[in-house]
């Protein structure tokens, strides 16, 4: 399971870089780096959030809606991986 999770996180980093057309190497994004907001070095905004949310739905079948709990999934790569693996680890 641990290997799957690491693999998933790398996939998510690649997805973020590709979908948001960021000019950076996916593997250099720390797992716990804040992705959005003024405290983030990646300068992603609400449009990027929607883009990532739709890509996550497309690739992993998980819907990130407007609710606080699911919205928090987009905080960092770690939380996004947790969100995707949530049902699978039940």
């Amino acid at each position: 399971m641990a290997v799957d999770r690491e693999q998933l996180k790398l996939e998510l980093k690649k997805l973020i870089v590709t979908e948001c057309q960021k000019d950076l190497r996916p593997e250099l994004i720390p797992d716990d780096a804040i992705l959005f907001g003024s405290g983030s070095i990646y300068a992603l905004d609400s449009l990027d959030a929607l883009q990532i949310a739709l890509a996550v739905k497309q690739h992993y079948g998980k819907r990130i809606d407007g609710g606080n709990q699911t919205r928090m999934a987009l905080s960092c790569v770690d939380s996004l991986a947790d969100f995707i693996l949530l049902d699978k680890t039940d």
Partner: protein
Amino acid sequence: MTMKWLAVSHYFCPVNENTHLPPLDAAVKSTCREPFRRVDRFIQLALLGSARCVQDRILSPDCGIYIGSGLGPIGNNIETQQQLIRDGEIPKPFNFINTLGASACFYVAKNLSLNGQNYFISRRRGSLQAVLSAATVDLSLRTIRQALVGVVEEVVFPVSEHRLRQGLRDDVALAEGSHWFLLQADESGSRSMVTKRFVEYGALEVFLKSVWCVGDRLCCASMMGKTEADNIQSCYSVESMSDQFSAFHDSLEAAWLASCMMSHEKGKIFLIDGDSERGWSLFYFGS
């Protein structure tokens, strides 16, 4: 109306089943004045062509932008329709935003720090004439002092489907391109660009005879009335666009004009368009 052309750029890339579209990311990054994201291939083509045309020039901030295209940002439109209809999903925001051809205008303006007129005109087989005419009107009215005029066409894979959409035979090769002209309201010196409108074909013929010289080049637009095009072909050394560009491109006129202007050969370059209903337009460029 006489004005001056300051610069021209020409990107033309034939495409078929056995080729891949060359990635444009690196070229766009090295040519543009600032990095961009959320852009699709159509916008990349527009950014690349316009940046190559302008190079290091500082344009007048009110310079107008006029982008023409036969097909427009077709790749993004297909992707958005697939997301909506085929997959039953909400389209991704970047795809949705860029379904508008005017998105390309926005990015070109941002790259060059322009805030003048900004038009996107889509017209099958006649986009060059449409944008040249619009720019000419604004330059003649002195709404703007400079105009950056471009024509952009993209190809979407698979090529067989792209052909099908355009009603082209299987053996027709395709091309994508981005062709740009920088014009200025200035009647002095060389590099002139003259546009004339004629209601009657006869008047166009008389005028053409009066200015035509050996070595000049002429081309009839693909939307031009056939009888008159045949007549002109019999009287002048008309160049066939399809002879020069073996691959089909919805805006071959733009490809032809830009390549002629970049060849630096002596002689004027004429482009004629029109029919008995629309009237006649003559664009000619002096070196």
